[in-house]
């Protein structure tokens, strides 16, 4: 047809024997793939619009549909993959920066999958978590360095505010605007029922969700959207977003098309105006400036809220974390390069940052070497996919994990990675009211609770098999881990031995 024509990535396969022309697929697809051909009296598909979100497949009453990857292929070679070739065509055609969403999809090492967990045999007993007590509660926040007593010798409670979590997993920052009202509502409801916290992200807090304040982390990013005194007071903790794993060093940019209605009011910017979060906080050009922002937030909230500083895992993460630990922050969150995003330049997403497993190991080691690990709690995120990842992260030294993508999958996300388009058929990454309605917060929160309950059981099973009955004793317990197929350098960084050692 033309030089810029690219054959569709996916094909819609319709079993005409099963199709009843009920047009459910057409109603479900916001991308406009399916349509009814009046002449032929059959359903047809414009596959160029398909993002493979599986919505039509899930909702076809006769199971007549499947989406398959197109086998129309270029003459690929090991260097020039089809993806790379297509990207060049797109840029040559548009002059645009490639924009993608969700986390780094490339074949880079997943260290969690190269780590194995220990279990007790003979020398000490495993514990049956179904019948014996097994504790997963954690407290996040700075711990005092020394015990103080009053004149009667009684211990004085000198703890600064702490976050109490029933399990060491929280829902990661996803802003209202990048995700829908019903997504936030699902997360907030689930967090409050689970005794954990969700995170507003940088788009402010809708007034309806102030009631979930005890289970909310409010985020302050460089754009300061929706940030005001009441907002800061609303949550249990405040997170300063310095960076995001999916796009370290890059700011956020929510297109004006998503700034509608309540999103506009919550962010306090006019409808249709782009919401730009600059890459740096323009009052933080150096580490001592971070201290200034941390304490300005503490002052504004009368020292009642722990302050979290979230950074992306970059090369020098250990030193950065050490600086943060000395900034007055109570908690540091490190976000690995596989972390998700509603939109990021493809090249940044796929090439900047380091795996969170290595970053976590390096940060925990560094903070201990400096004797300041107790000054700060450590949250890790950036593709925590299962209870096994949680257990490995805790054993490497994390206090808790953030899950973003996994939580969205629980809500129905099919990881089609087209969030940036704003037409999410699952009602998650969209502001279109018709689409938002598709996500029922009651059902969504139930599914999140199911997921977390299942993980909690699995975490307990792992702990029980290791003979550990409290999560505190797992934290930083690297002896419980062994590497498989890793080289000595990788093992050294992770601070673990190889399997068999």
């Amino acid at each position, binding site marked *: 047809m033309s030089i810029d024509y690219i054959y569709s990535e996916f094909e819609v396969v319709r079993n005409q024997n099963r199709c009843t022309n009920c047009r459910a697929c057409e109603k479900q697809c916001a991308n406009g793939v399916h349509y009814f051909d009046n002449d032929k009296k059959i359903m047809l598909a414009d596959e160029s619009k398909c993002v493979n979100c599986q919505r039509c497949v899930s909702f076809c009453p006769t199971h007549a549909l499947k989406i398959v990857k197109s086998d129309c292929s270029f003459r690929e070679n090991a260097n020039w993959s089809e993806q790379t070739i297509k*990207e060049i065509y*797109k*840029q040559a*055609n*548009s*002059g*645009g*920066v*490639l*924009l*993608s969403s969700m986390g780094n999809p490339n074949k880079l090492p997943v260290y969690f999958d190269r780590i194995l967990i220990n279990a007790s045999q003979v020398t000490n007993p495993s514990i049956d978590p179904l019948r014996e007590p097994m504790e997963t509660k954690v407290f996040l926040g700075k711990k005092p360095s020394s015990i103080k007593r009053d004149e009667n010798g009684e211990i004085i409670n000198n703890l600064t505010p702490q976050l109490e979590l029933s399990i060491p997993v929280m829902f990661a920052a996803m802003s209202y605007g990048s995700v829908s009202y019903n997504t936030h509502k699902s997360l907030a409801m689930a967090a409050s029922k689970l005794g954990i916290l969700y995170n507003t992200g940088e788009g402010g807090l809708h007034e309806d969700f102030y009631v979930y304040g005890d289970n909310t982390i409010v985020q*302050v990013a*460089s*754009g*300061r*959207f929706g*940030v*005001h*005194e*009441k907002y*800061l007071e609303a949550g249990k903790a405040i997170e300063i977003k310095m960076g995001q794993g999916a796009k370290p060093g890059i700011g956020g*940019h929510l*297109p*004006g098309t998503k700034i509608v209605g309540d999103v*506009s*009011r919550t*962010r*306090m*910017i*006019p409808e*249709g*105006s*782009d*919401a*730009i979060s*600059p890459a740096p906080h*323009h*009052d933080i050009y150096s580490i001592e400036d971070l201290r*200034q*922002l941390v*304490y*300005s937030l503490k*002052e*504004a*909230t*009368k020292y009642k809220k722990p302050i979290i500083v979230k950074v992306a895992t970059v090369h020098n993460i250990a030193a950065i974390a050490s600086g943060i630990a000395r900034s007055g922050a109570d908690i540091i969150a490190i976000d690995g390069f596989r972390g998700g995003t509603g939109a990021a*330049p*493809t090249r940044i997403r796929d090439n900047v940052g380091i795996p969170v497993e290595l970053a976590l190991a390096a940060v925990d080691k560094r903070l201990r070497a400096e004797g300041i690990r107790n000054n700060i709690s450590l949250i890790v995120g950036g593709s925590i996919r299962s209870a096994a990842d949680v257990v490995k992260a805790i054993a490497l030294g994390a206090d808790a994990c953030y899950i973003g993508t996994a939580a969205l999958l629980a809500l129905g996300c099919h990881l089609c990675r*087209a969030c*940036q*388009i704003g037409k999410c058929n699952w009602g998650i990454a969209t502001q279109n009211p018709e689409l938002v309605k598709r996500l029922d917060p009651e059902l969504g929160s139930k599914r999140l609770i199911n997921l977390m309950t299942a993980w909690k059981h699995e975490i307990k099973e792992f702990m029980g098999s290791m003979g550990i009955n409290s999560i505190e004793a797992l934290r930083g317990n690297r002896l419980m881990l062994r590497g498989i197929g890793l080289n000595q350098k990788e093992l050294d960084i992770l601070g673990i031995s190889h399997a068999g050692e």
Partner: protein
Amino acid sequence: MITIDAKNTRFDSLNETIRNSNDDVEIVNCLGQRFIGAGLSNKSLTIKGTPGNALGAYLNGANIEIYGNVQDAVGDTMNDGEIIVHGSIGDAAGYAMRGGKIFVKGNAGYRAGIHMKAYKEKIPVLVIGGTTGSFLGEYQAGGIIIVLGIDSKKNIVGNFPCTGMHGGKMLLRSTCDKISFPKNVNTRAATKEDLDEVITYIKEFCKCFGYNESEILNEKWTLVSPDSNNPYKQMYVQN
């Protein structure tokens, strides 16, 4: 009104005293204490000396008047209230300000009014009597920035003003001949109607610092506004 001698006082105890006071507060011998008035809503503060960074951060309705210069990040994420500075201010003033007013008699440093925003009737205002450093109104998403350049021989603003500006407006009391603006904004000579829209703020400024309003108005003005609310729309291609 109670008076606090801030000499040798650390910021945390000074701010606690301010928070716990039921009365308006005057601070004397202020020297470098940060975060004064952070999140404060219903009080008037008078400060003599040089307050530290992040004065009036998240200010929520209180009034602060300073007799002296002010350092960096004044009015950071301020929501409501008024800050009046009888002197000059440092960098990143009014960062992400979303309401309230800041009046400065003297000059502002770099990145004044960065990322100011607005929603409906809530419009922040930043008025600078002298000149400003570079990157004035960077990422400005809303609100009004007025720079008067009173008695100044320098350019009214430094380099790269309005970078990434996509909302709000700016009124500069100068023809701005020597200023180079980016492509994403429109500039034109301000009309009387343009000035009428902001006349209350200019009046208020004059009242604060004893200037003659008509002398201030009687000068050539430039209006700067963004070209589009979506400056980067054309930059991306879906992948």
